[in-house]
């Protein structure tokens, strides 16, 4: 069965690569054939050239942005899950916190970034905070939804075995919630990179967002595209890693 799944996912990756190559070919042909100026659409080959030329600074910026995203992501996941568990254990808190969280979550988090830059400065801290805030709300809401999915009868069963509230939480509610928690975590990977880059554009000392912003000011659109490609590959890798973990550990859905 696992061999079948492997060949299946290998086929999917193959198709994805073929699609990407096709897009790149059409891109290259239209950029060259229509003689488009670089600020509209640079050719794929010139972007690849840009990637090689700026490899050192792009790699440094990529590490910077990846570190911010990952740190904020981990903090956000932990805070979101912990808050959801607390709210579920204290039913009174729920009716207060849940509408508030939904309201805050419905505003795009980047709207808060000028304030966060003001409070936490231009360095990594402000980006980590922004990512953590964005991720924690998503994880909070998906964890709550997951914890609510628990079957009343299953709770009764394990209570009849003498389980207390903590045992019910640990052995039943959290595993029941896991598929939704990890689905929230998967969606949050991409979100964490986006939020880090957007916040960098508003003020930073390094990072892919900062590179993009600087390159736009210098009218260096090849570099903008090179940074975008690096950012996309960080996002995709992150997303792929969490999807892999999801498939491996949430096998029962």
């Amino acid at each position, binding site marked *: 069965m696992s061999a079948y799944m492997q060949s299946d996912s290998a086929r999917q990756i193959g198709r994805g690569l073929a699609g990407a190559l096709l897009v790149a070919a059409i891109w290259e042909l239209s950029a060259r054939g229509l003689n488009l100026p670089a600020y509209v659409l640079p050719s794929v080959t010139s972007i690849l050239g840009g990637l090689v030329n700026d490899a050192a600074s792009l790699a440094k910026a990529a590490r910077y942005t990846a570190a911010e995203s990952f740190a904020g992501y981990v903090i956000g996941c932990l805070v979101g899950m912990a808050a959801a568990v607390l709210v579920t254990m204290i039913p009174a808190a729920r009716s207060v916190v849940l509408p508030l969280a939904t309201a805050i979550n419905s505003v795009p988090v980047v709207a808060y970034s000028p304030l966060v830059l003001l409070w936490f400065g231009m360095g990594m801290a402000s980006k980590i905070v922004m990512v953590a805030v964005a991720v924690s709300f998503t994880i909070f809401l998906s964890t709550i939804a997951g914890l609510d999915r628990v079957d009343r009868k299953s709770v009764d*069963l*394990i209570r*009849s075995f003498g389980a207390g509230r903590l045992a019910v939480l640990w*052995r039943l509610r959290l595993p029941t919630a896991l598929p939704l928690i990890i689905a929230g975590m998967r969606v949050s990977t991409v979100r964490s990179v986006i939020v880090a880059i957007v916040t960098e554009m508003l003020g930073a000392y390094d990072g892919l967002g900062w590179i993009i912003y600087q390159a736009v000011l210098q009218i260096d659109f090849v570099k903008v595209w090179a940074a975008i490609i690096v950012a996309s590959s960080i996002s995709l890798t992150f997303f792929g890693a969490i999807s892999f973990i999801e498939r491996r550990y949430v*096998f029962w859905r």
Partner: protein
Amino acid sequence: MTQGTMALSDEGSRGAAADATGLIDRLGFSSGKVTMSTNVKLEAVEPAVTGEGEKPLIELRNVSKTFGAVKALSDLEVSIRPGELVTVVGPSGCGKSTLFNILAGLEEPDPGNVLRLKGVSSTASDLLGKVSFMPQRDLLLPWRNVIDNAILALEIEGMPRSEARRQAMEMLPEFGLAGFEAQYPNQLSGGMRQRVALMRTFLFKRDLMLLDEPFGALDALTRTMMQRWLLDVWQKHKRTVLFITHDVDEAIFLGDRVLVMTARPGRIKLEQVVDLPRPRKADIVTSPEFIALKKTLLEAIEEESMKSFQVSGH
């Protein structure tokens, strides 16, 4: 005959194969043990029929339960002696499940009740963790494999996993699950899932086992096989069982006594001693004694079913 059931069983090939091995085990086992079991069982049945002297394992008196305006149970009286297998039948909605929830400690009856476990007055919540309870659905945890599902109750009790797993591994063959310990519930047939749930209940060694329509969702063939198998396991382990069912045949085939409940509010309408010899073979269901018992019970249930239809106004 084994071949026939195998072919007819609607379970997947793995499930059918395992059921068949289990059945062969069972058949071989019971036929070899017939004479001995009869003697053993006669001794056990005697006090159950005549002995008022033996102290009941659990005793309920004046137990009522009201949910808002609905009275689910009214002055229910039940007492079960150690080692008995008592079955409960009744029209749907008669409060059988409420009775079970009270005995499992999940719901408190209305005040004024008497509830004694081994002669000691208790509240329902005292019974939490004292009774091994098996609900209608198997409720296996999909993220745990067979062995880890079976040891759930032991783990909650605080037994180390390795010790619990060892105990469960020893029980696997008896439950027709040998070789399936590492499978996950979604890989098992309905009959096998039910046996894992039963094994979980058996491993949680408590004086009283509550089984709430454990075979209700199974097809007829698997169900009769499971009934015979349950009797074997029960006789070997000498546990006290209270067994809820909709099926009168099942109630008579399994039970030392059958309790018929009234339509809501539930009371015991009839207590019928089943003095059929044990071990019981499959063909006992066609014997005149069995038919006579069935007739009495069906009449009582019919009367109550009519009432519950009138009450609900359909």
